[in-house]
């Protein structure tokens, strides 16, 4: 039982880890672009904004299990197979990119427009604004968004079991539900709960330590971030 769970843990971390990396790499520029191309944005382009927004909405509205099936031929083209851990990463990542992009958009929109203006007044171009203002200033929120994305991906990864990718969720379904080994199911649930709590705590800690806003007000930033994280996950 133990090696089974151990393997499942690694499978989950492997899938979630890689898909998070891809989601961040893909979702960050997409989210920033959503802000920049919006009305009164630095790269205002209403058409591009609408197109990107629609793609993100469609991808977001699709249930993960459907997305996984719909993407099968693409997955085969990328990884050469449609089963196993690697094959699960493709739909997980593609499902998470628009999810993360929306969170990035919300976080970047929070950055004070005055800071953008200040950098423009110094002679900075759009790229400078993104690099020196939008991303660093929203970093605590971006970290919180990443935490939310990881937690959501752990949830999705349970469904990856249907393509033989393994992982904790898969164990819970196959052993716990289908074979009535309820003890094993509760153990996986407990492990998932612990893993998610640890990730959330680590994310909160990272976000808080990057927050230089509350010099005097100690606990305030934490509360703010938690609120922001729950608020965004609700709208997801």
């Amino acid at each position, binding site marked *: 039982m133990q090696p089974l769970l151990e393997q499942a843990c690694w499978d989950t971390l492997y899938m979630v880890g890689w898909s998070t990396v891809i989601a961040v790499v893909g979702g960050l520029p997409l989210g920033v672009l959503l802000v920049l191309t919006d009305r009164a944005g630095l790269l205002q382009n209403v058409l591009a904004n609408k197109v990107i927004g629609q793609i993100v909405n469609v991808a977001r509205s699709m249930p993960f299990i459907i997305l996984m099936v719909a993407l099968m031929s693409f997955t085969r083209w990328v990884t050469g197979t449609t089963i196993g851990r690697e094959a699960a990463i493709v739909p997980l990542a593609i499902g998470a990119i628009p999810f993360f992009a929306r969170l990035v958009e919300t976080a970047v929109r929070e950055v004070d427009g005055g800071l953008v*203006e200040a950098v423009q007044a110094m002679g900075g171009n759009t790229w400078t604004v993104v690099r020196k203002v939008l991303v660093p200033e929203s970093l605590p929120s971006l970290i919180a968004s990443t935490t939310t994305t990881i937690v959501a991906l752990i949830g999705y990864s349970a469904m990856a079991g249907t393509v033989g990718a393994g992982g904790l969720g898969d164990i819970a379904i196959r052993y716990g539900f289908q074979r009535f080994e309820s003890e094993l199911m509760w153990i996986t649930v407990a492990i998932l709960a612990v893993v998610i709590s640890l990730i959330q705590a680590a994310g909160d800690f990272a976000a808080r330590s990057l927050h230089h*806003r509350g*010099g005097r007000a100690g606990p305030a930033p934490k509360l703010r971030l938690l609120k922001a994280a729950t608020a965004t996950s609700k709208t997801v």
Partner: protein
Amino acid sequence: MITTSGLTKVYRSRGREVTALDGVDLHVREGEVYGVIGQSGAGKSSLIRCVNLLERPTAGTVTVAGQDLTALAGRGPRAGKELRRARSRIGMVFQHFNLLSSRTVQDNVELPLEILGTSGKERSRKALGLLDLVGLADKAKSYPAQLSGGQKQRVGIARALAGDPKVLLSDEATSALDPETTRSILQLLRDLNRQLGLTVLLITHEMDVVKSICDSAALMERGRIVESGTVGELLATPGSQLASALFPVGGEASADDRTVVDVTFHGEAATQPVISQLSRTYNIDISILGAAIDTVGGLQVGRMRIELPGRYEDNVVPIGFLREQGLEIDVLGQEPVLLKEGARL
């Protein structure tokens, strides 16, 4: 140093047009502190944003240090390389400081230098020098959130100076500060203006700001400049709204058949015993309704509101006498046309 001519800015939104600037001609001389004052909505903010083209003017030109910025702007909404280069030589401070909360004070001051591509060593040398200049050498490693409003604005000023600008634009820099801090920030701007020969264009809605540091001032109303000139010129202009706001004297006429006259003394005239001379020469009783002496734009100025018996028509000669003494005379309740005729007497 800064010249705008025919500067016009029209905002269009949902078919409606709002004219924020309506043909503004502004001329700021090198090395002076120039204040533009007006109520909110008068177009001050649009004006200062048009000077470094953060806002594109709809029409008109902006020239800073001999360079026509409107010609550099290009056509697209984004600023080209030339314009960005020009902007880096114009410092700007903001009402809400606009410091990056993710960077230390020193890193905030280094930001414009990073954009200019200055090397790391040179950046930190310069940033520390500027922080010393604004009196915050010990706060280099602090974060903006740990500073008071006045300290934040000092950082903002240090940052604005990092690119060695000849011109500093101040967008309501003291409006978010308490009176005490306002004074110290204005003093700093004045010192920088003197020490570095910095030309300062500031916009404000506080008359005190103009009074304490400006060499010249302009009054804006509904997108137009309605009065402008050096503080001395403004005080010498009869009926000037700016002059009376800069230097108010109170007092109402005690009866209908009296003439109320505002007398402004500056320079040598301030030492002459004109009022007693007037009284003796024309044998009239003069009541003083109000008087004040103050320093405006570095000039010692006195202002007195006096009341003469009889209507304006009866007092043309005594008023002419006062004018001959080199005093600025403003007869209350007279039409501007009459005043101008009077000025030629």
